[in-house]
């Protein structure tokens, strides 16, 4: 039985048994593998990193080489139960359009992204006057793949504007663990958010 990263563990609990998922930026396919082995979930992962694609093949998960920025028009409406995207929303060209696509293809979606409103990030910018860097955000401003950072509030406002309903949300620290202190003030103390959303 494989050990699952903590945020993936939160996600897997929200995926219905015997359903079908699409994992955007599926990495080495660990979530898909876990879902197949433990919940009889079928699905596909999209990935563009060659080494990760090879790892998916070795893990026996369905992986399709496809760039999320080129769109998802090859997937038909309502063809998937749950569309999942972990830690990639902030790195795509148009997160807003991709969210639309996720909820066109899937009945529901699960999204995780780093919180730019995390207190350390806020203080980094405030005190150092430089673009924040941390273990979760280890890049310089000029080479970061994270081109569309947002805070939890930003994301929730976008969902409201789009008529997307937030079914569930969990906020975790940089080790993807839940902690009671985070629950006190999630938008300040949480580093990574996991949102479960739908149009229904």
């Amino acid at each position, binding site marked *: 039985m494989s050990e699952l990263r903590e945020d993936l563990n939160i996600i897997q609990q929200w995926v219905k048994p015997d359903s*079908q998922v699409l994992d955007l930026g599926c990495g080495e396919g660990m979530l898909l593998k876990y879902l197949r082995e433990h919940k009889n979930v*079928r699905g*596909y992962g999209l990935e563009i990193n*060659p080494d990760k*694609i*090879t*790892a*998916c*093949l*070795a893990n*026996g*998960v*369905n*992986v*399709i*080489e*496809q760039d999320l920025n080129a769109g998802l028009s*090859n*997937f*038909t409406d309502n*063809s998937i139960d749950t569309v999942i995207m972990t830690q990639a929303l902030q790195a795509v060209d148009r997160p807003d359009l991709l969210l639309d696509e996720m909820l066109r293809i899937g009945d529901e979606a699960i999204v995780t992204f780093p919180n730019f409103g995390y207190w350390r990030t806020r203080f980094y910018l405030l005190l150092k006057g430089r673009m924040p860097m941390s273990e979760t955000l280890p890049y310089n401003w000029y080479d970061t793949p994270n081109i569309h950072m947002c805070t939890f509030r930003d994301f929730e406002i976008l969902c409201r504007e789009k008529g997307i309903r937030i079914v569930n949300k969990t906020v975790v620290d940089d080790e993807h663990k839940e902690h009671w202190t985070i629950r006190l003030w999630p938008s300040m103390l949480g580093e990574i958010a996991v949102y479960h959303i739908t149009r229904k």
Partner: protein
Amino acid sequence: MPEVIADDSVGLVTPQLLHFDEPLTLRSGRVLPQYDLMIETYGTLNADKSNAVLICHALSGDHHAAGYHSMDDRKPGWWDSAIGPGKPIDTNHFFVVALNNLGGCSGSTGPASINPETGQPYGPDFPIVAVRDWVHSQARLADRLGIQTWAAVVGGSLGGMQVLRWSIQYPQRLRHAVVIASAPKLSAQNIAFNEVARQAIAKDPDFYDGDYLEHGTIPKTGLTQARMLGHLTYLSEDAMRQKFGRELKEGKLNYSFAPEFQVESYLHYQGEKFSTRFDANTYMLMTKALDYFDPAGDYDNDLVKCLSNAVCKFLVVSFTTDWRFSPARSEEIVNALVQADKNVSYACIESDNGHDAFLLPIPRYLQVFSAYMQRIRSELTVAGGAR
């Protein structure tokens, strides 16, 4: 000539000729009353006969997919980069079967074979065979070898079309389909290239409407031209620029119409080499089989419906600079399989080598191929209960 045979080669191999007496009814309605198939095998069939892999060849391929026939051979089999101990199709674990398809010219019954009814070569009277006829004959070959289910059926280009056909025609008889640099049907451009090639052969005065053997000739000029054109479509513009650029054979312009650029003499060389080893009627037949292939045609032109009967898992691979069978064509297959709710993985390999890439040892290609084949192996181990 291999002075020593490498550790990752299948080594010296001997083809076998198998005779089939049961008549084969072809797509065209014509019947081949009996036929021979020339095959090669590598590796060992396991006790429960679950580790067999079928290799389907492309336009000009044959049964000699790997290894050497003798120490005098200049080159190994056509897919030696992928088949052998430790290679993607690892012969330490798989029993590999390669054959020359019907209509071919490397030992299986084809236009140059003697028609038992007339005692003369079939020549142009050899029936036009379709991809489904090849797959039918390959299923009979599997029966003969005692293989109920292939662990995988694998092929590139026209070979990939046979793999697709297998998944539709005998869905229960393969567990995996590996479809490389292929397409669900030819485009108008593809068909046009084939027609120019066929016309080059047909208009050669030595062709005699396909009866050239009776006249003791071969349409060498036509075959050379057909191959030159074909070869051109297998390469990418980048590959040609890198390989030849505008380099001149003699380092200067001669103001003549003889080949002066390196690329010209390369094409002449490839064409002429091919024209001495390949049968013109076979070339005509193979290109027709390519043109006719359109499995969705039987399913209201709906590829999703066509593939909905498949039960095997698929790996589809394409190459970035392949314009003969571009990545978009492979993606048509992938998208249809996703819509049909099938297990499919897809990799688009960065390569400068055009369509030819599927035969070359490109590191990422071999990694993807190996990872997938190893997964098939791990299923064998589970199925067999060994280890």
